[in-house]
């Protein structure tokens, strides 16, 4: 983080200028300031929040605009769907535009399940109440004897102020209010509504993916998300690409015939995003894909990639080592755009837990303390046996047997 100090002399395009001094560096490119985004401290790229603050930290501060985040789904698609909903909910709170596509569920259903944001205030209702309560408010304000310095501050903040923060928290037990949700413009792509048309090209891409790519490009062009003229960010959520419902046999066979349909689509998606102010989150049921090399090429075509492995239904659910967590999270890839080195997270053992107000991702210490307690129990069993042996063995009065047995058990 001390690097910018040494390069202060070089006017390079990517350096930020913090407004703490009157000295303003001349930057060749104007920094776009859009609500809900912030420039990265490492390379000046525009970042948006994924809606999960711990995931933002893992990805290096946030999701860079123009990139794709690949989420390898867990077995029952519960937590990957949750992260997708967090991502879309963050878009609503930051007043970005949304694009949701799904083959199985109607995108409207996904949008109705978005979690409710935890705002700092009850701002939606008080602007109506405040004039009526003004006489009582005066008395209650006058009644501030201790916190009298806060008398003149406004009683509530507006909802806009809270959306200027980067990263919000959501309450999973409640769904987002319809009036908050409808403030954001949303585009939908529901596959059954787009009947298969014969495509003029013989590309490796399937018609379903072609239709989706075309629809995405239309939205980007019509709503003006191209880099030169855009003032807002488009958040794209693509649910369960590669599943059999898209007409893709990637998840069905070991040697699929359409092995390159999804990769060609991802290539086209990358090309679209690099030239527009949009960011995409794609979930793929990777546990159904048998070909590891194909999964590798899918990962490489996306910029960020994480994999979720939930403990539900597996024997790890009852394992005392993992009792605090809901699953493991693997960071497969972190991009290094506009710079040479990438910042992989230091720890490889990450586990997640979905709490009511937070999706937390922590380093999972693989239970050395649990190991020790387990072995200690074994110790007591063995030492008990040694005691019995010793009691039978009256010729050996020395108690050195017992400690020796202890130390043998302790070496692991």
């Amino acid at each position, binding site marked *: 983080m001390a*690097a910018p100090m040494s390069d202060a002399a070089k006017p*390079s*395009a*990517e350096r930020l200028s913090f407004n703490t001094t009157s000295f303003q560096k001349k930057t060749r490119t104007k920094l776009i300031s859009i609500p809900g985004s912030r420039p990265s401290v490492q*390379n000046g790229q525009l970042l948006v929040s994924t809606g999960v603050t711990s995931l933002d930290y893992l990805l290096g501060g946030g999701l860079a605009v123009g990139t794709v985040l690949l989420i390898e789904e867990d077995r029952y698609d519960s937590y990957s769907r949750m992260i997708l909903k967090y991502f879309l909910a963050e878009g609503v709170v930051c007043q970005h535009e949304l694009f949701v596509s799904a083959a199985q569920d109607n995108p409207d259903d996904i949008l109705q399940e978005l979690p409710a944001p935890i705002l700092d205030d009850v701002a939606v209702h008080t602007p109506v109440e405040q004039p009526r309560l003004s006489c009582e408010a005066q008395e209650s304000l006058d009644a501030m004897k201790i916190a009298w310095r806060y008398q003149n501050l406004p009683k509530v903040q507006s909802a806009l102020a809270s959306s200027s923060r980067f990263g919000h928290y959501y309450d999973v037990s409640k769904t987002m209010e319809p009036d908050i949700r409808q403030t954001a413009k949303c585009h939908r792509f529901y596959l059954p509504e787009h009947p298969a048309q014969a495509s*003029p*090209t*013989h*590309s*490796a*891409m399937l018609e379903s993916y*072609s239709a989706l*790519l*075309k629809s995405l*490009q239309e939205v980007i062009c019509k709503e003006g998300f191209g880099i030169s003229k855009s003032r807002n960010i488009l958040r794209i959520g693509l649910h369960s690409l590669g599943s059999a419902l898209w007409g893709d046999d990637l998840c069905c066979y070991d*040697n699929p015939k359409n092995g*390159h349909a999804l*990769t*060609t689509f991802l*290539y*086209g998606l*990358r*090309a*679209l995003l*690099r*030239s527009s102010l949009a960011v995409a989150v794609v979930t793929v049921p990777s546990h159904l894909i048998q070909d*590891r*090399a194909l999964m*590798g*090429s899918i990962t*490489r*075509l996306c910029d960020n990639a994480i994999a979720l492995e939930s403990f539900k239904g597996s024997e790890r659910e009852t394992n005392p080592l993992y009792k605090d967590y809901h699953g493991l999270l693997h960071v497969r890839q972190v991009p*290094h*755009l*506009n*710079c*040479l*080195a*990438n910042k*992989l997270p*230091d720890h*490889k053992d990450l586990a997640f837990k979905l709490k009511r107000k937070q999706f937390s991702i922590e380093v999972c210490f693989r239970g050395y303390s649990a190991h020790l307690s387990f072995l200690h129990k074994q110790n007591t069993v063995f030492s008990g046996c040694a005691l019995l042996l010793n009691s039978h063995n009256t010729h050996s009065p020395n108690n050195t047997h017992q400690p020796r047995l202890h130390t043998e058990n302790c070496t692991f």
Partner: protein
Amino acid sequence: MFTELNSILNIAPDSITQGEFILVSDRQSDASFLIHHFLSLFLRARCRVLFLSLVQSFNHYSAVSQRLGVSLAQAKEKGQLVFLEGLKESLSVLIPQETDAATLSPLSVVRDPAVGLRSLYEFVQFRVSSSGEGRTGAEEWGPPVLLVDDLSVLLSLGVCAGATLDFSHYCRALVCSQLQGNVVMLTRCDGDQEEDEGNNEGPERLLKGLTHLCSLSLHVQGLPTGFCRDIHGQVEVCWRRRRGNGQHMQKKLFQYKVHDKGASFFARGTSSAVL
């Protein structure tokens, strides 16, 4: 340009060996930092560079080259660098508009993978042979260099490994033998080496074919002992054909760490974090 790598490879901007086919490959790692090195090296050596960028945009290379001390925008203006933005070209092919009917894009292979890479080769041929001739007031540039970042993405688009190998062979014949220039290609692999691939297609076959074709190969891998924060991986440098010094291969293994402004290479076990 990484100075330590230059001393390892015995290359300097003022003494470039000509007619080399350099293969940069990686397995479960990322060797793209070497492409930035070769790009800045050949631009500093005043060669004519043709860059086929199939996976990243121009701004990415421009930003990194800025840190390495070379300006891509300036090189493009002067005519030293010809940059093909694969992403932009293929987008116009993947989503066909009604207006462009007869234009044959260099990446029309994306429209129909069975056609092969002929149009891409013709683009390379046209740009490498003709640029630098007949331009009034153009500066004299050195031998041509072809850089391809990332050849294996063509396999993801449905092109078969055989067609990709043919393309690289044609490029080598044109640039290395005919024009005495250099070729640098990056290819990426994902699986373990011990896995036996039943089918002959795929990145393994491409890697084997290119390794046979090249004269210098740099293979980047992760450390066999696991992830380490201070040592990002190992590079195996292999000289396949040495002129005049005998025909045997020479291999050397180094470990590397990528910084913000370059990369440092050191012999195994001599990382500054360890010593």
